[in-house]
C-alpha cells in the first residue's frame, strides 16, 4: 500500500460540506415556511449538521461560526448585524466542542439523541447571545426581552432541533457510505496503460466499471472512497505521480469532472480563472494575461464579468475547462465532460477539446459513453470492464475487439458497425 502522503479529498471536505450546507441555509431563510411569523434559523441547523458530520477542531468550529456570521451579515438586513458576528462563532465553538467530545452522544431506547440535543443547545446559545446583545445595546425593555424575545429563541431552538434530528441520520449515512461505498478489495486490477504524448485518448466502459477511479488515479487523487494503491506506479513523462511532491502535480495534469457545478467556486467568470492562478502565487498582471488567453481559447471572451450562476450548462463546463487550462498542464483529463450538457453544448465542447489537442498539443484523456462525438477523430481508445482493462490501442482496433468479444458492444457507434459488417460481408 502506498501510504498517505497524497492529496486526499477528505482533507478539504469539512470546508466543502460546510460551504454547501451554509448556502442551503441562506436560501432556506428566504423560502422556508414560517411558524407564526417566526422563521427557523436554518443557518444554525445547517452548520450544526456540518459540524456533526465532520467533527472539526474547535478552531475550525469557531471559524465556521464566523463564516456563518459574516454570511448572515452580508445576506440579510439584520437589525443588529454585529450581533451575528459574536453569537454565531460562540455557538459554533460550543457545537464543535460537544460534537468533538461526543459528550451528548446518548441513547434513549434505540434513538440516538445527539443531533437534537446538540442543535438545540447551539441554536439556543446563538439566539440567546443575539437577543441579549440586542437588548443591552438597544436598551430594550425587560418585559419585551423576557416575555417575547427569549420564548421566541426557545421556540426556534426547539423547531430547529427537530429538523436537525430528522436530517442528521440519513445525511450521516450517506456521508459515511460515501467513504466506504466500494467494499470490494480493489476497484481496479492490473491496469497497464500507456497514453502517448499528444494523443487524444478515450476510455469507455459501463457506469461503475472504474473509469472515474482510473482518471483520478492518474491525477494522483485518492478520494476518501478508495483505499490506496498496491504495487502501483504512475508516471507522466519522468514525473512520478505517486512519489513526487503532490503540490507539483497540478502543473502536470489538469482534471475536469462531470459535475461542473461542484468545480465552480467563485461568483464571476473572471474570478474563477483567477482562483487557480492566485493559488499558485502568480502576479496579478500575469493572471490577467493568462486569463484573457484561456477565455479566448474556450470561446468565453467578453464573458469575464458574467456571474457563474447565469451561464448555461455547456458554458459552465467550458469555464471549468478554461480554469484548468489556465494551469498550463500538458495533460488534460476529463470525466464524461458532456454528460450533463445538451447536444449543442456537447458538440462545442468536443470541438474545443479537439482544437486543444491538435493546435496546442495537449494530451487529452476522456472517459465517455457517447462516442458519436469522437467517431471521426483520430483517437486512441481503451475499454474497462469490471475493474479490468480489456483493451487499449487505436480506436478502430478497440471497436474491433469490443465487437468480436462482446465487451460493452452497446457503445459501438452504429456507423462503425455497419461499415465493418459491410466490409466483412456480414450485411
Amino acid at each position, binding site marked *: 500500500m502506498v501510504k498517505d502522503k497524497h*492529496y*486526499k*479529498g477528505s482533507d*478539504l*471536505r469539512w*470546508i*466543502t*460540506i460546510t*460551504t*454547501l450546507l451554509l*448556502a*442551503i441555509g441562506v436560501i432556506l431563510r428566504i*423560502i422556508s415556511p414560517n*411558524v*407564526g411569523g417566526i422563521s*427557523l434559523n436554518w443557518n444554525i441547523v445547517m452548520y450544526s449538521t456540518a459540524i456533526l458530520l465532520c467533527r472539526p477542531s474547535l478552531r475550525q468550529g469557531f*471559524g*465556521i461560526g464566523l463564516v456563518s456570521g459574516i*454570511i448572515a*451579515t*452580508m*445576506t440579510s*438586513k439584520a437589525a443588529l*448585524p*454585529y450581533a451575528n458576528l459574536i453569537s454565531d462563532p460562540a455557538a459554533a465553538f460550543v457545537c464543535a466542542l460537544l460534537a468533538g467530545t461526543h459528550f451528548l452522544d446518548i441513547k434513549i431506547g434505540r434513538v440516538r439523541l445527539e443531533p437534537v440535543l446538540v442543535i438545540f443547545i447551539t441554536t439556543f446559545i446563538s439566539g440567546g447571545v443575539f437577543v441579549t446583545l440586542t437588548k443591552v*445595546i*438597544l*436598551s*430594550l*425593555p425587560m418585559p*419585551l426581552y423576557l416575555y417575547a424575545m427569549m420564548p421566541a429563541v426557545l421556540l426556534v431552538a426547539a*423547531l430547529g432541533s*427537530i*429538523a436537525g434530528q*430528522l*436530517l442528521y441520520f*440519513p*445525511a450521516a449515512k450517506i456521508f459515511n457510505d*460515501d467513504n466506504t461505498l466500494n467494499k470490494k478489495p480493489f476497484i481496479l486490477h492490473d491496469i497497464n496503460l500507456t497514453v502517448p504524448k499528444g494523443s487524444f485518448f478515450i476510455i469507455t466502459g459501463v457506469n461503475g466499471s472504474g473509469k472515474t477511479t482510473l482518471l*483520478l488515479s492518474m491525477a494522483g*487523487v485518492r478520494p476518501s472512497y478508495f483505499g490506496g494503491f498496491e504495487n502501483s506506479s504512475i508516471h507522466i513523462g519522468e514525473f512520478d505521480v505517486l512519489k513526487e511532491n503532490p*503540490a507539483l502535480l497540478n502543473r502536470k495534469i489538469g*482534471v475536469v469532472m462531470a*459535475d461542473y*457545478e*461542484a*468545480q*465552480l*467556486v*467563485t*461568483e464571476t467568470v473572471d*474570478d474563477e480563472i483567477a482562483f487557480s492562478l*492566485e*493559488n*499558485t502565487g502568480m502576479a*496579478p498582471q500575469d*493572471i490577467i494575461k493568462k486569463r484573457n488567453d484561456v477565455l479566448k481559447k474556450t470561446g468565453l471572451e467578453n464573458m469575464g464579468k458574467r456571474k457563474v*450562476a447565469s451561464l448555461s450548462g455547456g458554458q459552465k463546463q467550458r469555464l471549468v475547462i478554461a*480554469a484548468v487550462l489556465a*494551469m498550463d498542464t500538458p495533460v488534460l483529463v476529463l470525466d464524461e465532460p458532456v454528460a450533463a450538457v445538451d447536444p449543442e453544448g456537447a458538440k462545442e465542447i468536443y470541438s474545443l477539446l479537439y482544437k486543444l489537442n491538435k493546435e496546442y498539443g495537449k494530451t487529452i484523456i476522456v472517459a465517455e459513453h457517447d462516442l458519436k462525438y469522437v467517431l471521426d477523430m483520430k483517437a486512441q481508445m481503451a475499454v474497462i470492464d469490471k475493474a479490468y482493462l480489456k483493451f487499449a490501442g487505436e480506436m478502430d482496433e478497440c471497436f474491433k475487439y469490443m465487437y468480436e468479444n462482446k465487451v460493452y458492444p452497446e457503445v459501438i457507434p452504429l456507423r462503425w458497425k455497419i461499415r465493418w459488417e459491410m466490409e466483412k460481408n456480414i450485411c
Partner: protein
Amino acid sequence: MTANNDMTGFAALTKLLMALTVSVASLCTTDLYALGILIILELICAVIMGGGKTLWKGIGALVIFAVILAFIQLIFSTPLFLSLGSAYKMFIMAVSLLILVATTPTQTITASLVKQCRLPYDYAFMITAVLRFVPDLLKESKEVRQAQACRGFHPSKNPVRRIVDYMMILKPMVFKAISRSENMAISLSLRGFADKGKRTFMSSTKLHTSDYTVLLLNLCICVAAVKYF
C-alpha cells in the same frame, strides 16, 4: 449582496473602519441630535459610495424596521426619547455594514479580511463560495419543490407538520450537497487550494490618501457629535 463593481475607489478596509467608528460612536451617546448627525453622516457616505438600488432598498427596509422597533417599545411603555434612541442606533449600526457589503465586491471584502484582518484564507474562501452557490441552489430548490409536487406533496396547514413536511424539500438538497462536497474537495485540491503560503489576491486592498482622508474626517465628525451634544 454585492452586484456592483468597486466604483468608488475606497478600500474595503476603509469602509469597514468607518462602519465601526460610527457604530461605536452611536453606542457612546443617547442624545437624539448626536444620533441624528451620525445618521446624516451615514447617508452622505451612502451617496458618496454610490451603492445604487440594492443599497437604497436596504436602507428603505431598515427605516420601516426602525419605526416598528420604536413602536414596539412604546407599547411596552418606554419613554419616547428612549424608544427613538434605540431605533436610531439600530438604524445606524445596520446601515453602516450595509454600505460596506452593498458597494464592495465579495472578492474584495474577503481579500481585505485575509490580508488586513488576518482571517485565515480557508474561511474567506467559504464566504465567497457560499455566495456563489446561493443562486444555483435556489434554482435547484425550485426543481425539488416541483418534483415533489408531482408526487402529491403540498405543505400542510399545521405549522409543526409543515416543518416535518419541509424535509421533503430539504433532504434531497442536503443529500446532493453531501455527494457534491466530495467532488468539490477533489477539484479544490487539484487546483492548488491546499498549497498554503504563497497565494496572491487580484483584488486591490491598499489604502490611498483619499482613504486616510475620509477615515480621519469620519472620525472627527463622530467624536464631535458624541462630545458636543
